[in-house]
Structures are given as structure tokens and as C-alpha cells.
């Protein structure tokens, strides 16, 4: 192949491609495939003033906020999907601890449309969603206008172009062409909306594997700046076909981060004292890993691309 390999470690990828002050799309797939390993590396490398973008975000946003990396959140929902609130988020918004953050509230649809607008290369997209809501009143990126074709009221959702999208996938080649399946959420648009993409993959495969099923290629390599081979990089969130959701981990996080001091202990234990994903997996322990591993495979029926 004439293209150059984009393979690098998570440490390198974050070092090279994410600066303090960047806008970062994370958790585009909702409750699946959240790039926790990448988020933890952002924390370890001490990024500051990040703007986080994502639909529901789950506890990765909460951790980044608690670690002081974030000055702004643009999201539809920030919390813990199975356990409820995110305490760090609440502390930051209500009390400015560890630092104040600005929250720009979207709904899921308006967040999806903001990224879709950027992916389509237009300044906005129209919707009826949020009419009559306080999201429309408070979020400056949502603006009521009259339809030019029907005189109806509509909301213009301004396009949102993240500096970087960090997207977890099942398999990719070294050039960033990536297969992704299961929960898609806003990931396809996210990859195209962003100025740069970091692909975090469970497996590196030959380009011929990707080319065997071009309809499953949801991220073309020319959009990708870095490819990180990081198995279990999404734990405690699940990756379809690779590992399940560690529900208990989310519950424990909820219990162990209620108070600021407790969160700091959690942060040290699971992120700061851990150099990388390998060590993290050791802390998780083999029996937990075993419990989350795929028990029963369910392979897709092949599609024939022959002629």
C-alpha cells in the first residue's frame, strides 16, 4: 500500500492530536463504545479547557469534569446512564468544583443535527424539535426561524464542528479505514463533522478485511489522524461482539464519587496511578474480565460482494 500507517499508542495519539482548549467529541455511540481509555489519557496528560461534545456522554464526561479538564460541555444528557446522576458534573455546575463549567444544553436530536449539518457542510439544519422548550431559549446554537418554503416555525440548529472526534471501533486497518457495528448513534456524522478523527480499535486487521465489506466501513481512513489499537479500550461500556457492559462498575462509580474526596480517591486509583490500559486491566482482574467476555458468538450472515 502506498498510504502510510497511522498506528500509534494512545499516549502518542493524545499527545499529538489533542491540545488544551480543543473541542472533543466523545461517546458518539451513546451507551456503547465510549472511549474511556482515551478519556483517561486526556486526564493523565493534564489537558485543560476542553469543550466536550456528545449526546448522552455517560460517566466519561463526569470523570473529565471531575479531573478539571473541562470548561464547557455541549450535550443532551450528562450523568450515569444506569445509576443516575453524575456527581462531578453537578459539583462543577452548582459550585464550580474543581472549576466552573459552562453547559450548553441540547436534545439528542438537535445534537445529532448539529453534527449532521457539519457532516453535510451546511451552516444549519432545520427541525421542529425544541419548539416551546427552554433549551431553545437558552442555547444560542438553536434559533427559531420561518421556513422559507412553508411559513412554518422551525428551529435552525447551527452546525458543530469538533476539533477532534475520538471513536471506538471493532476493527480497523493501519490507515484508519474502520468497521463499526452495533450501536451507531451519531458516530458516522461525528467522524465527518470533526476536523480530525482518532480511531481506537479492538483489533487491527488487513485492509482486505475492511474491503471485504465496504458497507460496514463507517469511517474512511482519509478522515483519520491516528489509529490506536487498544483492546478493552471502552470498558466499562460495552463493545458489541467483544465485551459486555460492566454494570457494576457504573454502580460503584456512582457510590464512590458522591463526595469530592471519594472522587479524588477513585480518580487516583483508576486513572492517575495507572499508566495505561494494560495496567487498568490488571486492576480490573481476570475474573471480572472473564465475566464480561463474550459467552456466545453471534456472527452475521455473510454478504456476497462477488461478481
Amino acid at each position: 500500500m502506498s498510504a502510510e500507517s497511522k498506528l500509534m499508542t494512545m499516549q502518542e495519539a493524545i499527545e499529538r492530536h489533542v491540545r488544551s482548549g480543543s473541542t472533543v467529541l466523545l461517546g458518539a455511540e451513546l451507551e456503547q463504545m465510549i472511549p474511556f481509555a482515551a478519556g483517561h489519557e486526556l486526564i493523565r496528560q493534564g489537558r485543560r479547557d476542553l469543550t466536550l461534545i456528545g449526546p448522552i456522554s455517560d460517566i466519561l464526561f463526569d470523570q473529565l469534569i471531575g479531573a478539571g479538564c473541562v470548561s464547557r460541555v455541549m450535550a443532551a444528557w450528562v450523568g450515569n446512564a444506569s445509576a443516575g446522576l453524575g456527581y462531578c458534573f453537578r459539583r462543577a455546575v452548582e459550585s464550580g468544583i474543581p472549576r466552573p463549567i459552562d453547559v450548553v444544553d441540547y436534545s439528542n436530536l438537535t445534537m445529532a443535527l448539529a453534527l449532521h449539518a457539519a457532516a453535510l457542510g451546511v451552516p444549519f439544519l432545520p427541525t421542529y424539535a425544541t419548539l416551546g422548550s427552554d433549551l431553545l431559549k437558552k442555547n444560542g446554537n438553536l434559533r427559531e426561524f420561518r421556513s422559507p418554503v412553508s411559513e412554518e416555525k422551525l428551529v435552525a440548529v447551527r452546525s458543530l464542528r469538533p476539533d477532534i472526534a475520538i471513536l471506538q471501533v471493532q476493527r480497523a486497518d493501519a490507515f484508519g479505514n474502520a468497521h463499526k457495528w452495533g450501536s451507531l448513534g451519531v458516530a458516522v456524522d461525528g467522524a465527518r463533522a470533526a476536523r480530525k478523527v482518532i480511531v481506537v480499535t479492538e483489533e487491527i486487521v488487513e485492509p482486505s478485511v475492511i474491503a471485504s465489506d465496504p458497507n460496514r466501513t463507517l469511517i474512511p481512513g482519509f478522515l483519520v489522524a491516528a489509529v490506536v489499537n487498544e483492546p478493552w479500550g471502552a470498558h466499562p461500556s460495552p463493545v458489541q461482539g467483544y465485551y459486555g457492559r460492566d454494570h457494576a462498575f457504573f454502580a460503584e462509580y456512582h457510590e464512590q464519587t458522591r463526595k469530592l474526596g471519594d472522587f479524588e480517591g477513585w480518580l487516583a486509583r483508576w486513572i492517575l496511578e495507572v499508566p495505561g490500559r494494560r495496567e487498568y486491566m490488571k486492576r480490573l482482574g481476570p475474573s471480572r474480565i472473564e465475566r464480561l467476555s463474550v459467552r456466545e458468538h453471534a456472527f452475521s450472515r455473510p454478504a456476497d460482494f462477488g461478481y
Partner: protein
Amino acid sequence: MNARQRPPAEFAGRSSCRALWEMTLPVALYSPGELMVTAAAREIADGELVFVGMRLPMLAFLVARRTHAPRSIALYENGTIRQTPSTEMLYTMGDPANLCGATQCGQMLDVMGLLQQGRVDVGFLGAAELDRFGNLNTTWGRRDGELRRLPGSGGACDIACLARRTVVLLVHDRSRLCERVDYVTSPGYGTGNGWRRAQGLPEGSGPSAVITTLGVLRFGSDGEAYLASLHPGVSVEQVLANTGWTLRVADELVETIPPSGQELAVIREFDPHHFWTRSDER
């Protein structure tokens, strides 16, 4: 088995609860959460497209699908469309069990497009606060007079704006059912009759039922909520005392029909540890 009692951990797992399916349980033994799930399930008619969301409504859909609405179809915001029930309890819509064997896994906009087209018959929502006109707040709650930041809309605002009907589930107390919400995350009937159309929201859309821990509220043509059904053992006075405005009461107030043995069996098959139905506040 007492529904309030948690079954031993050994009793959990993918198929170990299948036996329950066949059992006919005594109807009286159910938790408030189970009653709410059942009442929510009954809001789904057969063949309908349902925007399911998280928590109790995930169970409600499963109950409906397995009892009176076998052709109903579930839509999830992650892009998933599902016609058959998943094989195990779900903690989130993104659990691998919810995607494996799904009818379609698409993008969020694929399902949101169906919602905005007006094809979705009913959407389910939770709420921290609900007011007299069915407006919901999940962004800024008030506790002990102080504003507390809540997680936000997720897809709730979209569903409230665009589904033909919305069904709300929440705990019934004065702080949650209030005269006027502090922040309209998800619009109901706004300030009453005609308000939704004036905002530009689709004709005929809006909240259809509010299922609380005490009863079921519905809405008059003026957009104001009224008490339509009381849960067994609950009095009108109790409801009024726990509602933050002077709630109207239906002339023909009925009693909420308790879960049947079959309905309870489905709930317990998918929530064997009462993760969702133990308390009603998750």
C-alpha cells in the same frame, strides 16, 4: 415469592427465570414500580411504534410486546429498532443483548427521523418535575428551595415535541408535581389550550398520560391534567395532598387495574433482581 423481596443472586441469568413465565402469581404481590410498568405497558396498542427510552419504560415495552401488543415495535435513540424482546434484562438501551438480534441498528437520525415524520405513536418519558399542563423538567430541579443540576434532556425534549402521544412516569409528590416547572426541558401543553400549535409543534401531539406512584393523570382538551385513575389502596385526598396544584379529578374516576400474573411474570423475567422495579425512583 414476595415481589418486594430480592431473589437470590443464583436465580438470575439469561434464561433461569423462564419458568416464571408460566406461573400465575397472586395479583396482590407487586411493587409500586411493577404497577407503574404495567400501567405504562397498557398505554401501548398493538402494532404501534414506540419510542422506548430507558429504565421503567424498557420493561413496559417488554410487557406490552409479550402480552396484548405482540406487533408493537421498539425504537431506541441509539438507532436501534427491535421487534422481538431481548433475551435478558437491560440496564441501558445500548446493552449488547438489545442489539443482538435487533431488526435494525441504524444511526440516531434514522429513528429520530421517524419520530419527526410523525410515525411514532407513543414515547415514554421520566421526569424530575411535571406541572399542571404536563410540561417536564429534567434539567434544573429544586430541592429544599435550591436549584440542583440534573442530567438534562437526552431525547426527552424531542419525544415530547414530536411523538403523537407521550406517557410520563414519575414519583408522586408535591415537589415533583408542581404548579409550574422551573425549566421546560420537554414541553407539554405549555400554558394550555392552543399553546402547542402556536409554538409550531405538530398537530395532535402532546402528553397523553402521566403514570405516578399514586395514580394516572390524563389531560383535558384545555391541556390541563386531571386525575383519571387511582392505584389500588390510594385515596383522592392522598393524591391531592401530594400534588403541587389543585388537581382536577375525573367525574368517572376508576381504579388502576393491577398487574396480571402474566404481566408480572414478564417483568420479573427481565428484572429478576428488581433493579428497576425495586424502588420507583431510578
